[in-house]
């Protein structure tokens, strides 16, 4: 199993913390954490991973570009991305176009990058002015750059966007402002796991639903669990790229509580929204052509 190193994968971290995977008889042979969805998608493509809690956009990339035989069996949350800015330099969205503004974003193909493009579209910003000013770096490096005063604006996934607020940045736009109903992360499994061990997939979905319900009912405790998982237990979970930065940046339960309140945790997933996402990233040229959302979705486990 692999998860992203964010509170997007809260249901996985909480299930791990509570021992709910073991309770259901699911013995994980590996539990790996990745800084970005793109890194996780590459691991999926290499064949290392059978189950992943991953943002929808890199999951689609892995399926369409690398031909990874995966199915989305559940959602984990909606929204969970945002643009944070230095309020002394940026007052409005149009200020992002200014030539002296230093912008940060993850690599192309990440969900945050797609939000960046949606922002450009929605606010009729100049693509050239924005994209030529972008410095591509992963979220922890962006937060560190913000702390060092090297960025004026950053497009980040949660919890990194909320962490940036700790350094005086302000949320300019959240994903729900830019893309209502945006699907955040999803639970994906390899097709052969569905074929050979459908009961395992059923249990995974069940545990995800249980954890999602629990975190919605116990937000304070969920934030504490996440802080513990991301910061303390992280010794073995921290991806190498994040370890150095994480040592300098404290991921507190207060930050996580604020961050997690910005996401709508739900395992429900709308095929229409998935189709919109596929069509949009095809329009951006990130996948060769659009395809039917039903090809990547298997929501039968969710319905049962």
């Amino acid at each position: 199993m692999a998860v992203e190193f964010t509170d997007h994968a809260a249901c996985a971290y909480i299930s791990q913390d509570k021992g709910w995977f073991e309770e259901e008889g699911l013995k994980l042979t590996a539990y790996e954490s990745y800084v970005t969805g793109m890194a996780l998608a590459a691991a999926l493509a290499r064949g290392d991973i059978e189950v992943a809690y991953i943002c929808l956009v890199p999951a689609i990339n892995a399926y369409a570009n690398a031909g990874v035989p995966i199915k989305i069996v559940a959602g984990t949350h909606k929204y969970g991305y945002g643009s944070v800015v230095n309020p002394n330099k940026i007052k409005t969205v149009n200020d992002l176009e200014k030539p002296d503004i230093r912008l940060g974003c993850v690599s192309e193909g990440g969900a945050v990058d797609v939000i960046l493009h949606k922002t450009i579209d929605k606010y009729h910003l100049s693509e050239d002015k924005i994209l030529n000013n972008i410095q591509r770096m992963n979220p922890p490096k962006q937060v560190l750059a913000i702390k060092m005063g090297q960025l004026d604006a950053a497009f980040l996934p949660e919890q990194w966007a909320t962490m940036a607020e700790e350094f005086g940045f302000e949320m300019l736009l959240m994903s729900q402002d830019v893309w209502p109903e945006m699907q955040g992360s999803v639970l994906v499994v390899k097709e052969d796991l569905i074929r050979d061990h459908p009961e395992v997939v059923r249990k995974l979905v069940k545990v995800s639903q249980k954890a999602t319900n629990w975190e919605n009912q116990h937000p304070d405790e969920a934030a504490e669990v996440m802080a513990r998982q991301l910061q303390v237990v992280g010794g073995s979970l921290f991806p190498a790229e994040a370890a150095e930065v994480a040592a300098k940046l404290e991921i507190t339960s207060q930050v996580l509580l604020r961050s997690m309140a910005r996401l709508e945790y739900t395992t429900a997933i709308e095929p229409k929204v998935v189709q919109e996402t596929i069509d949009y990233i095809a329009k951006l040229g990130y996948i060769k052509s659009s395809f039917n959302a039903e090809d990547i979705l298997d929501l039968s486990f969710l319905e049962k």
Partner: protein
Amino acid sequence: MSKLKRLSLGWGILPVAIFLAIWEIVARLDLIPGQFFFPPFSIVMQEFYYLTANGVLGHNFLSSLTRVLIGFCAGSIAGIAVGIIMGWRDVINKALNPIISLLYPIPALGWLPLLMLWLGIGEALPITIIFICSFFPVLYNTVTGIRNVDKDFIQVARTLGASDTKILTTVVLPLAIPNIFTGLRLESGMAWRVIIAAEMVAIPTGIGALLMKAESLIRIDIIIVCLIVLSVMCLSFEKFFAYMEAKLTTKWR
């Protein structure tokens, strides 16, 4: 074209054709696990056509080419100019040589973190990197070329009444040209290698940036297209300078 030349060309192309055929067969037969990590050559060419047709490759290629040309020309001209002065004037050579000797071994990409802080992310950054990449080796080769000119030739010219300027332009520089061209030839290919690396790390446009974009989108075909472009450009630049070197220096060799 003579029969011998055609035969020689055929022998040059044959290994490449065999290599491409093996590549295509191995990928088509899925002999390497994970077909998408090893696309057939025909798929790569299809993507090459697609990227060319939609202008993505052209746009990024032109960005890289412009940076290489500006950085390389500026670095080479500066390297040759300073090299001539250092090679021709012993006192200047003695003054600058310790500094050059200290700076020359630093790999061009080693300057990148410093330049990112000094110059920020912009066009000046890759151009400066290419400038540094070209300047020191061309300078070094120019100094070596000039200082290796047989002193007897200079003495003869001086005896015949030639001025210093005349000796430099008609005796020393022509004899140093093979060395200068060796530096230019080697660094013209190196400039491409360096620009790709710089664009991969810090610049949002260019072939290196396209490589990084392809990596994050898991587009192996685009990665291979970029590598082919890089290889062709390194080779073309080196061949161009090898041709110019042969053309201009034959009579002195």
